[in-house]
């Protein structure tokens, strides 16, 4: 193997050629996505299916979804470094990288999504402190930097690189400061997960999204934070499992996975309780106050039926919450994974309806429902982010000691 001396010690990896083919496949998708980006940047957003009704579409949904799922990074970091749950060190590296990928991807998509990317920095230079989106811009960029800083020491742990004394020392210093970054990251991430939710909750012109608050205003601020940390760990755990399936090697012990499942599950219980409360209050108090009924803000013909809500709260909320919180179920791998998948799907649906259904539901009584289907440019640029993630993760897995348990688990 050509890259033998770059590989972590004592682990097995597939042949370099095979690895290259794997990279080439994803690289091709990435390139296709880059072409999509080129189209968008050179010809404008007219190349997408976004329109006057759907200013927000797949991209923002994708953004919010990956940011929520990427929450495993900050929350695992928080639990490991601040709360001190030691077992999490077995998966924290992966959590950080997944988070990094999610955030970089989100930023890329955001740059595409705004009509004037060259002015993206205005968010810093001319900020409107009243806007939730300003907070999002601040936190997302700052947290992205934090994740980069957290990612660097993992890179520096590469066998070949760490032979260098300076690098080794540097990596060590990074590690010392890691709790600090974890803290900063937790603050930033919490804040902007909340701001993302707040973005919708404050839309008092959009009954579908508008939420009043009990003690946090808008209420979605709180719900988005909790839902993100209720799905992030599950997502990290799923990625680890997926990597095991693909590589055919054991990477994380099932105990750690169950721990992640338990964390996600407890939070999901907490979240879904408040989500149900919130939905109930919104349907019975907020909407009628605006002159609307619960029935009016859903429409099967336009693709925004109530089934979405039942799926989100019931199938992808209550059920995984039970499966994850009850140890008996958690111990059965199939149930653990299914529950985690449902959990993630539920959060994606949540982000989707807040983004797209908010725009689709007519507010003017004489307006009508509109439907939206993303076109290939939107899809490929989103898939491109996934390809980017796969490549980063593949490289990281191959060359960096991500999983402390890997050697142990694959001894036989």
């Amino acid at each position, binding site marked *: 193997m050509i890259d033998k001396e770059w590989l972590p010690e004592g682990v097995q990896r597939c042949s370099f050629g095979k690895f290259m083919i794997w990279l080439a496949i994803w690289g091709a998708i990435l390139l296709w996505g880059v072409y999509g980006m080129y189209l968008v940047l050179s010809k404008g957003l007219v190349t997408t299916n976004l329109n006057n009704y759907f200013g927000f579409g797949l991209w923002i949904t994708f953004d919010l979804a990956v940011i929520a799922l990427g929450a495993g990074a900050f929350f695992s970091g928080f639990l490991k470094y601040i709360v001190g749950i030691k077992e999490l060190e077995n998966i924290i590296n992966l959590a950080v990288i997944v988070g990094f990928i999610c955030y970089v991807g989100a930023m890329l998509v955001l740059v595409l999504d705004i009509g*004037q990317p*060259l*002015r993206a*920095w*205005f968010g810093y230079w001319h900020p409107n402190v009243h806007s939730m989106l300003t907070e999002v811009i601040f936190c997302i960029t700052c947290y992205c930097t934090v994740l980069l800083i957290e990612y660097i020491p993992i890179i520096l742990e590469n066998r070949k690189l760490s032979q260098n004394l300076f690098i080794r020392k540097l990596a060590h210093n990074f590690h010392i400061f890691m709790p600090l970054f974890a803290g900063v990251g937790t603050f930033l991430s919490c804040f902007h997960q909340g701001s993302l939710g707040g973005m919708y909750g404050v839309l008092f012109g959009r009954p579908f999204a508008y939420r009043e608050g009990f003690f946090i205003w808008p209420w979605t601020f709180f719900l988005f934070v909790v839902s993100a940390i209720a799905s992030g760990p599950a997502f990290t755990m799923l990625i680890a499992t997926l990597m095991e399936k693909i590589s055919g090697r054991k990477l994380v012990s099932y105990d750690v996975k169950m721990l992640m499942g338990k964390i996600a599950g407890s939070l999901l219980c907490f979240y879904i309780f408040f989500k149900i409360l919130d939905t109930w209050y919104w349907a019975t108090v907020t909407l009628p106050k605006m002159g609307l009924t619960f029935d009016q803000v859903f429409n099967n013909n336009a693709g925004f039926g109530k089934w979405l809500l039942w799926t989100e709260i019931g199938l992808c909320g209550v059920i995984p919450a039970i499966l994850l919180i009850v140890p008996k179920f958690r111990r059965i791998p199939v149930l653990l994974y299914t529950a985690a998948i449902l959990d993630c799907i539920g959060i994606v649906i949540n982000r989707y309806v807040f983004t797209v259904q908010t725009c689709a539901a007519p507010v003017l009584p004489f307006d009508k429902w509109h439907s939206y289907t993303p076109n290939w440019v939107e899809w490929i640029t989103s898939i491109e982010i996934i390809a980017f993630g796969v490549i980063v993760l593949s490289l990281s897995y191959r060359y960096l000691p991500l999983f402390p348990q890997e050697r142990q688990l694959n001894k036989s």
Partner: protein
Amino acid sequence: MGLDRRGFITFLVGGAVGTLCTPIPWKTLDDVSIWSQNWPWIPKLQYGKRSQVASVCKLCPAGCGLSIHKVGKRPVVAQGNSTHPLSEGGVCPLGSCSVRLLYRPARVKGPLKNNNGKFEPISWDEARRILSEKLSSGKAACISGDENGSASEVLAGFLSLLGSEDFYFMPSDAQVSAYTWSQMGGKGQIGFDLENSDYVLSLGADILSSWGTVVRNQKAFATRKGKYIYAGPVQTGTAAAVDEWVPVYPGQEGVLALGIAYYLLKMGKGATIDGFSEVKNFVLSKYTPAVVEAKTGVKINKIKQLAQELVAAGSPCVIIGSDFGQGSGSFDWTSGILLNLLLGNVNKRGGMVLLPEVKVVESAPSRASLSKNVLGEFLKNVVSGNKKIDVLMVYDANPIYALPQALQVQEAFSKIPFKVGFSTFLDETAVMCDLILPAPHFLERYDDAYTPFGSGKVIYSVAAPVIKPVVNAKSTPDFILEVAKSLKKDLGYKSFEDVLKAKASAVGADFEDLLSGRTKVSNKWVGQNQLRLSVEILANGLVPDTEGTFLAPVARNYLGNTTQALTPTEVVVVRDSELKGRDLYVQVNRTTAKKLGLKQGDKVKLQGAGREFVGRVNITETVMDDTIAVPLGFGHEAWDEYVRGKGDNVFKVLSVVTEKGSGFQVWNKSQVKVVRA
């Protein structure tokens, strides 16, 4: 000391730190974002001194006075002239686009000669030489779309000097009304004094959307003293705003008029006209309420109520007209006029008034005699060979697009060996001509409008060019005067400007005053001799309808009109219930749709007059039962990318009937067969 790797890295770090302390990153970031305001394809504003000049809109026959706003020497936008009696500061959507039309991509850029299907640019001198040569040896005819301008007078006068009587206006209610009135022994042009009326009943005429002096109608409506009632098959803009909409089957408004007349006669109303008793007996026996209800779809009670309200009004006014401004017959107008006569409001304040005509080109025939020239009959005779024409001149008109029986029109065109199109835009007619001699946009030429049809006053407006032609165009009447000169025919004027000056003095106005936007207005009415009325005409309303669904074409100013296709600026005004992509919507109500087995969005064919019209179904309750409404103004094959290929042309499926007693062609009562495509 050589620079090792670490040294080099430190050098780079130093450079980076240094660069951050220079304007490079910050200024570049800033400039690049400023550059995004200034992409090369974003136009720069060209500042200058603002001014306003008066003009007169010639995009439709309504003759609104415009105020053209200029920056430097460039006209920028058109607004209504607040001192003009027909616009009072308002202007319709089409008129407000007039400046932008100067640069419409479809403009004809210069004189063109058709060389075996390919248009080649020629000079104006050559054009004059070719046309003079053709005219000196052949029989000429002319079609004009300019209903109230002196350009038509020049053309008609020129034609009669050439020994031809074949001058035709594009068909319109103005023509039918003039013909009907002169057949009744009446004098002058029919007008409606809406401003002073306290009860306006519009039978068919879509007065607030497209009919007659639209903007002036709207102004009169806004300051109305009493009720406005609109009877028509479709809930148009007029129906939306007026006090009451009375649904009536397309083209049956004349029958409704006689239904109302029935009650007036019963109330003992009369009129001093020849043969009145015969007329009275005829109406009372033939147009009984039951008959009228069956024909019009209007309930007996409603007919009676309208009659009572009209009688109760102090100065009622009944307007009659085609739902889409053309295709009406003498029957409709006779019925409407009869109603006004019975109400005793003819030449009365707030009623139907008669306005004098003015003519300054001596050789031109009078309006009354020109109104007898029916274009459809002419084209029929050309096709059948009864009429041999060598040269056809078309001015400000698009007959190939805007006449029913398109096949016949095209055939007639192909039988005429030499056609000249005096057109501003490359329309369907122009592209079939042998010579295209671009007429200037109205803002680039002298032009006038004398008492637009529907106006209740005599109004004469004249406009001078606001800008030099932006293409190589030449005023058509001036060109005609040149051709006349080369043929040694004397129209009595050196230039079109002189014609206008003569007209100004004939109406008793100062030419310079007119140019500055001060319009000549007079309230003079024409006294009448004894009128007559024939029962034969009135019998036309009793012809049984053919089988099929009623077709109600709908004219809307923002969709363009018979001469001007949908303008680039108005494209966004088109509703999503009118057009989707390239498919035009036809409108039917739920009941009719059910009857015809149609669902929302279905593709349908409307079959009529041997042709087919394709559209999609939009179900809306704005259309009365058994009726299918279709917007006019689509299905263009020429012009530019803003209209070409959008929708279908409803003129194709309009069926033409020759009216008994008048010989007029009528197509406002068309019916079509609706089939799923």
